[in-house]
């Protein structure tokens, strides 16, 4: 029972404990989860340290290797007939994603501190969802990957449907159906891979040479399947509605982590197994991603509801992830992975703050709020830091990711013409101006100026738990922003194999 | 050229077809049942020609004696005899006629075109042979079917009583 299995199933055990505690001790639920996820964070740190120890020895070898090298591996056979194994391990990229998820679930639990409506089931579902996410990031057997992928997606329906606000049933239904459609494409792809490659084990499949005509149709299947979750352009409409009606912790977890599953999946499965397919389809998805970026930021300008505002901004930032991946360039892919981490933290911060503001003003309508800075300075300042991070101010993690993607985008890859690649990157870079416009417009309307609604005079500033939540997230933003070389060193080793395979 | 037997066959066929048509077209259910009785009788006759004498007996005794009588009882009980069947609208009739005629065409086509090897020695349909065949458990026999049928009839016996029993609320209504 290695550390990875503990990390994956600890949330599940917590969920069971919470479910078993009697209703009389209702106040205990929050504490169990808080301490549990806190412990989880510590364990993730231990895991990272263990990873670093074993990775240090072959840091140089990674540069030229053609295959991902796994650490802390656990492998047991599960269904012998179809040689499906419980095969989990971790490489640089997965460690980064595990840290992100652990931080987000810890702050998510803290952010839903004053939730009254059936907290027991809420926390249980939340933890089950996060178990699925952890599972995806460590599993290297396609079947296991898909099982965890489904476990991560399914609880969303209940979490939004029961605890949501606004037209929650509609959004929950839409979200789940679209994600299911996506995972249907995925299943088709995985089965095609299995029949062709002969096994579910990702590393073995890596050695298998897939025929070109098969790659040509399976790669777009997988890309679109994962793209639906990663808010790729035409399939992104579930995310604004889904986030607008989801409760705080759920939209934190969803926008922060679940949408990163899309990008992670594209890289880990689609691009790893089908390099020629990636080259073949490179340009079309690059154009789609550019639309995603520009479209998302422009749509965010006109949003009136805070959550839609953030949802569209995260559509645009997720577009950056897919853009980074679609350029098939080492620096850009590394940027995409950093963007997954940094955007996860950023959206987590944003949605937790929106939850706190909504908890006080009971409205998310931007025009009707104003001058809140005087009343809640801590929340105001953290909102501004989140805003500046999202528009890519240096010394915050947003800049690290975006500068990588732009530099990588400019360097392009040997298969596409330099001009088109640079033109598309220039277009994507333009979105940093539009992001600045809508972030500042939105925040200025909500926080600056005179207090419009007299009721807001007597609102209170952040409580201890809220300060803890925002504090952790902002510290991470600054830490990655000021010391990017640590994050880059962690991720770089695992990116080289992907690029060398092209 | 026509021997007495074929003539007789023609006669039986015409009568059976005509009464069949009667069964189907009569509005009054009583008339339709009696036409059915006529068809069954004629069929019994046919069995004789087809060297299945025992079957004629079974047919007359069980089929006409039992089943048709039962139907008549049911008609009496439900008072269906007195009232006329309400008319089915004509386009439904036309549709029904068309479908059944289409069925007729298809099956005649199938029958005419499939060459079946016929043997003209005729079967020795003695009752003794029939009984042996029925209970023969060597593998080509029908003992299993025989047992199942007896079970079925028993179940039907009990079932019919249970179903037809007057329910409580019907009693005290």
């Amino acid at each position, binding site marked *: 029972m290695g550390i990875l299995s503990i990390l994956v199933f600890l949330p599940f055990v917590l969920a069971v404990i919470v479910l078993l505690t009697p209703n009389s001790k209702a106040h205990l639920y929050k504490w169990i989860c808080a301490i549990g996820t806190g412990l989880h964070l510590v364990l993730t740190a231990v895991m990272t340290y263990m990873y670093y120890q074993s990775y240090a020895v072959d840091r140089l070898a990674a540069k030229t290797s053609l295959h991902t090298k796994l650490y802390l591996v656990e492998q047991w056979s599960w269904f012998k007939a179809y040689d499906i194994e419980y095969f989990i391990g971790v490489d640089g990229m997965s460690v980064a994603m595990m840290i992100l998820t652990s931080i987000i679930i810890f702050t998510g639990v803290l952010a839903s501190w004053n939730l009254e409506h059936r907290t027991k089931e809420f926390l249980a579902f939340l933890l089950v969802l996060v178990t699925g996410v952890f599972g995806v990031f460590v599993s290297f057997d396609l079947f296991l990957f898909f099982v965890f992928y489904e476990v991560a997606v399914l609880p969303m329906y209940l979490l939004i449907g029961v605890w949501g606000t606004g037209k929650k049933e509609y959004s929950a239904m839409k979200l789940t159906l679209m994600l299911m459609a996506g995972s249907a494409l995925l299943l088709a792809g995985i089965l095609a891979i299995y029949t062709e490659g002969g096994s579910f084990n990702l590393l073995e499949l890596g050695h298998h040479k897939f025929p070109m005509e098969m790659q040509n149709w399976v790669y777009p299947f997988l890309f679109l399947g994962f793209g639906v979750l990663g808010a790729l352009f035409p399939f992104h409409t579930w995310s604004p509605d889904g986030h607008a009606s989801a409760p705080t912790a759920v939209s934190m977890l969803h926008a922060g982590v679940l949408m990163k599953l899309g990008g992670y999946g594209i890289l880990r499965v689609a691009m790893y197994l089908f390099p020629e397919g990636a080259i073949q389809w490179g340009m079309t998805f690059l154009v789609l991603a550019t639309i995603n970026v520009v479209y998302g930021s422009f749509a965010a300008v006109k949003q009136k509801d805070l959550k839609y505002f953030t949802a569209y901004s995260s559509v645009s930032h997720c577009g950056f992830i897919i853009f980074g991946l679609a350029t098939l360039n080492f620096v850009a892919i590394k940027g995409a992975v950093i963007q997954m981490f940094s955007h996860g933290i950023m959206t987590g911060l944003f949605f937790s703050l929106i939850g706190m503001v909504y908890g006080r003003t009971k409205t998310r309508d931007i025009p009707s709020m104003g001058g809140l800075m005087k009343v809640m300075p801590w929340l105001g300042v953290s909102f501004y830091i989140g805003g500046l991070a999202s528009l890519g101010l*240096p010394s915050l993690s947003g*800049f690290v990711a975006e500068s990588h993607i*732009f530099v990588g985008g400019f360097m392009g890859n040997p298969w596409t013409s330099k001009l088109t690649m640079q033109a598309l990157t220039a277009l994507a870079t333009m979105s940093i101006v539009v992001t600045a416009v809508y972030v500042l417009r939105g925040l*200025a309307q909500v926080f600056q*100026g005179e207090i419009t609604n007299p009721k807001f005079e007597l609102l209170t500033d952040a409580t201890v738990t809220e300060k803890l939540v925002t504090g952790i997230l902002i510290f991470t933003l600054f830490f990655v922003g000021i010391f990017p070389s640590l994050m*880059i060193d962690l991720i770089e080793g695992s990116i080289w194999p992907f690029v060398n395979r092209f | 050229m026509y021997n007495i037997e074929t003539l007789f066959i023609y006669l039986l066929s015409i009568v059976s077809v005509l009464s069949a048509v009667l069964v189907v077209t009569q509005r009054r259910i009583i008339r339709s049942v009696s036409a059915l009785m006529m068809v069954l009788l004629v069929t019994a006759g046919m069995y004789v020609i087809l060297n299945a004498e025992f079957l004629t007996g079974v047919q007359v005794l069980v089929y006409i004696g039992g089943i048709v009588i039962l139907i008549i009882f049911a008609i009496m009980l439900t008072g269906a005899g007195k009232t006329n069947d309400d008319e089915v609208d004509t386009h439904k009739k036309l549709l029904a006629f068309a479908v059944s005629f*289409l069925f007729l065409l298809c099956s005649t086509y199938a029958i005419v075109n499939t060459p079946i090897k016929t043997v003209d020695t005729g079967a020795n349909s003695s009752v003794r042979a029939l009984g042996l065949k029925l209970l023969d458990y060597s593998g080509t026999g029908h003992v299993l079917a025989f047992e199942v049928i007896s079970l079925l009839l028993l179940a039907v016996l009990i079932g019919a009583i249970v179903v037809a029993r007057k329910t409580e609320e019907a009693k005290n209504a």
Partner: protein
Amino acid sequence: MNTYGFFLTNIWLILLIPLLSFIIVGLFIGPKNKKLAGIFATTSIFVCAALAYGATFEYLSLFPLGAEHPVIVPWSVQWMPYLENLTATLGIMVDPLSLLLMMIITTVSSMVHLYSIGYMHGDPGYSRFFTVLNLFTLSMLGLVVAPNILQMFVFWELVGASSFFLIGFYYTKASAVAASKKAFIVTRFADLGFLLGILILSYEAYHLFSLEAFAHLSSYNAFDFNFLNHPEVINALSTADGALLTFALVLLFIGAAGKSAMFPLHIWLPDAMEGPTPVSALIHAATMVVAGVYLVGRLFPLFGSSEVALNVVTYVGAFTCVFAAVIACTQNDIKRVLAFSTLSQLGYMMLSLGVASPLHKLGYLASNFHLMTHAFFKALLFLGAGSIIHAVHSNDIWQMGGLRKKLPVTHITFLMATIAIAGIPPFSGFYSKDEILAAALVNNPIVFIIGLFVAALTAFYMFRIYFLSFCGEAKSDGAKQAKESSISMLIPLIFLSVLSVVSGWFPFEKFFLSEALVHNTPSWLPIVASGSGLLGVLLAYLFYFKKTTYANSVKNGFGPLHTVIQNKFYIDAVYLFVVHKIIFRFIAAPIAWIDRHIVDATMDKTAYVTKESGLVLKKIQTGNIHTYTMMFLLGGLVLFLLLLGVGF
């Protein structure tokens, strides 16, 4: 031979101290004790000033005045490793240009800190003000000492962000909020150009590493200035793809133009006056706006390699110079006048950089000399204006008057600064402006004439303020009971006034350049330059001091043109129109609408279609036995016919 003394070895303190004081004041001292916050912040900046001066003396001791002044990078650490030869380092680069800028920034910033202890007294956001001011000084220093272009971009953005917070300091005032938003978005737009420029430049430079001719330079990174300004690299780049290099340089210049508020992107500077006056003094006079000039100065060898880029710099600079000076003459708010005068002086610096070229560096020398002198007297002008506003409680120059006796110290210092900016000989303004005009005369006569004309205009509008505010009788009760500001506000005024006089005599040329420069400026030039300045003063004297009707007659003479100029040629309105009407209504709204009604609707429609088809199919289950059997039979027959048709 890195026998650096104390100051140069731990030069990195100059960045660490403001960072630490920013964190300490911001998080710990600020909320608790306002007074201590102010003092702590100011002392930390004074320490930085000491460090800067120490480093300069140490540098000069290593490389005496006349001799070679090499570029040294005493401290640098790896910050962001993109790729093997493409790593952004965080470091400090020391050479005359960066030392000069370090001295200017720390001096002006410490004076402004000292001044704002008095000026901001009693303001609720007192400690917040000092925190962000410290952050600004940190980012400005970081920008100036950057050894590579990416670190410069990083601190460039931080400068933009801190100016956003400082302009929007009075965040309850709607106009301040709008102004801070406008400033940040316009500079952000310019930074987009800057970033694209960096990307193109670093892309081209990075590809040079693959050539074996540059094997000996492989220790550098594609971002480093030493690498980009390296003569071999420059001619490799210009020969490889001259047009692309010019395009990259023009993009970089757009970034510089945004920050230094050159013509098309100048709209945010006049509105930035919404911020507290010390902010205007520090940011919008001395340091931030100069960052653009510093960028062009730092990449001067590269700019020199493409004619087109230099021409763009010259003509944009010259046009802004004239344009701003003309508007300045018509403004009524004292801070707006000073803002436009800053715009015009920045135009001067840009045009002087434009006319220079790697061969005759006079323009390059003159622009940085003017940069230094302008920093001191413009900061003094703003601080003086601040103490006037503090006393009179209004910005409008028509409500001031007769303050000569009431604010003696402010009056003298303000007068000295006005004389300096007007370019009257003994003061510093004359020396630097004279050198610019000399450089312009040699290379570009048209620009020389423009420079001369603007010199007169500058003198005119500066003395216009001087006469209206200090001479004549008080025009409003506010002006009547005006009383001198507190001592902590006056010391910086005095110190800066001394500096604005002395800085002219500083042996700039020997300090700044390695080899002596051949001077062939004609003898008549200084006379003509100071003459135009005096002409401007005379005109202002006639118009405003003698209470003659000339002022109004000239105004009516211009008629409608005057109002147009007063409203800054309605360029703000054009920008507003473009942003709100075009971008918001014709791009953002349709996209939001499309997303809601087309992309989203298709998803809903597919759901609707499945529902509808369900309803249609429902009709078959009628519950009627006839239909069921009919279906059953028809199915069989159809199958039969099909098989028949297929012929088994």
